């Protein structure tokens, strides 16, 4: 018992060492899995990952120890994380494919975090995240192409447009529940996607082409990024931009989780009627969850549009919404770290399954079903709320 207690409360030095080592290990693993390009190496790395999760499952104190360490030295944790994120492109170097995967993974992480407010915190199904993502992308792309509005201005405009959309879907959410609500959001998603596919001013099925690259302080994002004489490919610009957005999303998630809003969402998840009896305005908090989701998703959509400079309705289908939902469930509902891991894993995995060539989508489906059967609570289950005190 004594040993367990000391493990739960590590010393400062031990905590710092653990924090730095674990983050470096995580980064190395990410680097390796991005780098490898053969079927067997991928399988080996996945087996390693599986072993890691098996250990976490069998020895739950590891997770407790990790959480305690991170909480003990928050500054070290954050600085290490920042250094890892900032330094990553330097190791990747000129491998633009790796950078591309990282950017897409970061954008999906933002989308998954956005959906997590609803699915994870409040247990509201939403299959329209793909649509909010699409609205963000189309609004900003149309503004940039037709009116020459700069990227930085389109960001808030797109977010506002999508938030409005979030309110519009949120209103029927006050009346329907569960499966019926899921269908309402599916319907909204399909309507938006079909409209984008049919309107002539959105380019129809061909989409929008030639979205200009954003620029900041005279530096165009289409140019290579030069830092201290290191020349990074142009994708690095978007890598840092998306990383910044992920940070914004994480901070938002933490602040909301710690606020009355997050508490109200959790109350909704636990029992809607009990929440109402406690004086929580159920309808308002449900609609708010939709709005926050749409707001963040639109940011991701805007960056995506300017990054690939070409968008079409195919990028925002029902299956995209399902993918985002799968990321949240696989990562672990209402667990910010888990959701990000889920997003990275599910973005990178299908790409790495290219070794299986044509069978990768099949394989992907099988993996998801198997995962939901074996570990339905997600990789990192939600943790108890702690209010500073030791349990």
């Amino acid at each position: 018992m004594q040993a367990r207690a000391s493990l739960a409360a590590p010393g400062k030095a031990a905590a710092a060492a653990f924090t730095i080592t674990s983050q470096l290990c995580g980064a190395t693993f990410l680097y390796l899995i991005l780098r490898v390009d053969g079927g067997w190496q991928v399988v080996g790395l996945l087996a390693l990952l599986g072993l890691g999760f098996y250990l976490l499952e069998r020895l739950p104190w590891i997770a407790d120890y990790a959480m305690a360490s991170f909480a003990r030295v928050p500054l070290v944790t954050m600085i290490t994380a920042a250094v890892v994120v900032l330094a990553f492109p330097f190791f990747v170097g000129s491998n633009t494919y790796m950078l591309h995967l990282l950017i897409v993974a970061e954008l999906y992480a933002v989308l998954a975090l956005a959906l997590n407010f609803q699915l994870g915190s409040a247990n509201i199904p939403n299959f329209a995240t793909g649509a909010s993502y699409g609205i963000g992308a189309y609004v900003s792309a149309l503004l940039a192409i037709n009116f020459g509005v700069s990227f930085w201005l389109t960001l808030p405009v797109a977010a506002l447009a999508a938030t409005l959309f979030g309110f519009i879907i949120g209103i029927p959410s006050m009346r329907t529940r569960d499966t019926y609500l899921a269908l309402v959001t599916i319907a909204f998603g399909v309507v938006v996607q079909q409209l984008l596919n049919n309107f002539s001013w959105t380019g129809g099925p061909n989409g929008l082409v030639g979205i200009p690259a954003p620029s900041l302080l005279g530096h165009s994002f289409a140019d290579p990024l030069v830092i201290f004489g290191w020349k990074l490919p142009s994708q690095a610009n978007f890598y840092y931009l998306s990383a910044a957005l992920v940070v914004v999303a994480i901070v938002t998630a933490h602040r909301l989780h710690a606020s009355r809003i997050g508490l109200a969402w959790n109350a909704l998840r636990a029992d809607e009627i009990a929440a109402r009896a406690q004086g929580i305005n159920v309808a308002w908090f449900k609609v708010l969850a939709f709005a926050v989701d749409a707001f963040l998703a639109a940011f991701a959509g805007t960056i995506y549009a300017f990054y690939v400079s070409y968008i079409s309705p195919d990028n925002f289908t029902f299956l995209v919404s399902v993918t985002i939902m799968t990321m949240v469930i696989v990562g672990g509902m209402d667990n910010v770290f888990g959701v990000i891991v889920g997003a990275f894993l599910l973005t990178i995995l299908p790409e790495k399954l290219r070794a299986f060539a044509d069978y990768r989508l099949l394989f992907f489906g099988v993996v998801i079903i198997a995962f939901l059967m074996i570990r339905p609570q997600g990789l990192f289950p939600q943790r108890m709320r702690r209010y500073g005190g030791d349990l």
Partner: protein
Amino acid sequence: MAELLVQQLVNWITLGCIYALLAIGFSLIFGVLNVIHFSHGDVAMTAPFITLGLAQALATALGASIPAWLVLAVPLAVLAVGLIGVLLDKVVIRRFRDAPAMMALVATVALGIVIRELIRHLYPQGSNPHAFPRLVSGMALEISGVAVSWFALLVVVLTVALVTMLFVFLRMTPLGLRIRAASEDRIVARMMGIRDARVFRATFFIASAIGATAGLLFASYAGVTRFDFGVMAGLLGFSAAVIGGLGSMPGAILGGLIIAGIEVLAQTFVTDGASYRLVFVFLLVIAVLIFRPAGLLGRTVMEKV
């Protein structure tokens, strides 16, 4: 004008019957298991491929033309799809019976991906569309100058027959009674000595076989089948079941007719309606659920505290 009206009326009823058959499967499975079987559309759309494959195999093995063998291949395919449904339940869906609703939804969406990919890989040139013959050809009768095909008649007769059989089965046979009991309350049904495993097997077989019929009729109506038809078939069938009220058989039929109705109306009276038809369909779905949150014929359950 009258001709157009009759023509569209025939189209509406044909399509409505097909959607209703799809919706019945969703509704039946939801009613008994409380699980949304989102890959039901994909299961249904395996039927045309199995039929084509069987007919082809029989034709090469025993001679004679492919259409001649369809008579045998169609019932075999319906049977096979029913068994596929039972198998999927046993391997996958059963495990999500008591899980949160979203888990089952995501798992069955993934299952749908798996089924589509399997069709694509197992069927020769599965990525391409394949022509599917009309099950019956020729014109049956004429109503005010409009020829009504045997096919439209077949769809209606088949739907009426299947729905009647299902109704009789659920109301008047012991197994039907057990299915209804399990759908009302699974735990109490178990306490009354009803083996729920059997009930689930029967439900999945019936739902999938009816879905297979719908899939065959759909492919026959469109004249073509493709591995990814299941997505739309699933979405439309699911929508029909939900706006009718999940778990309600008359609701599923009503939902199917409504969805088909709005689709035909959009195609006939709106310029460019064919490309906007899904927009109209799903706007209607949203509207119905705003005013009737549990579907048109669904029971509103008051939750006790």
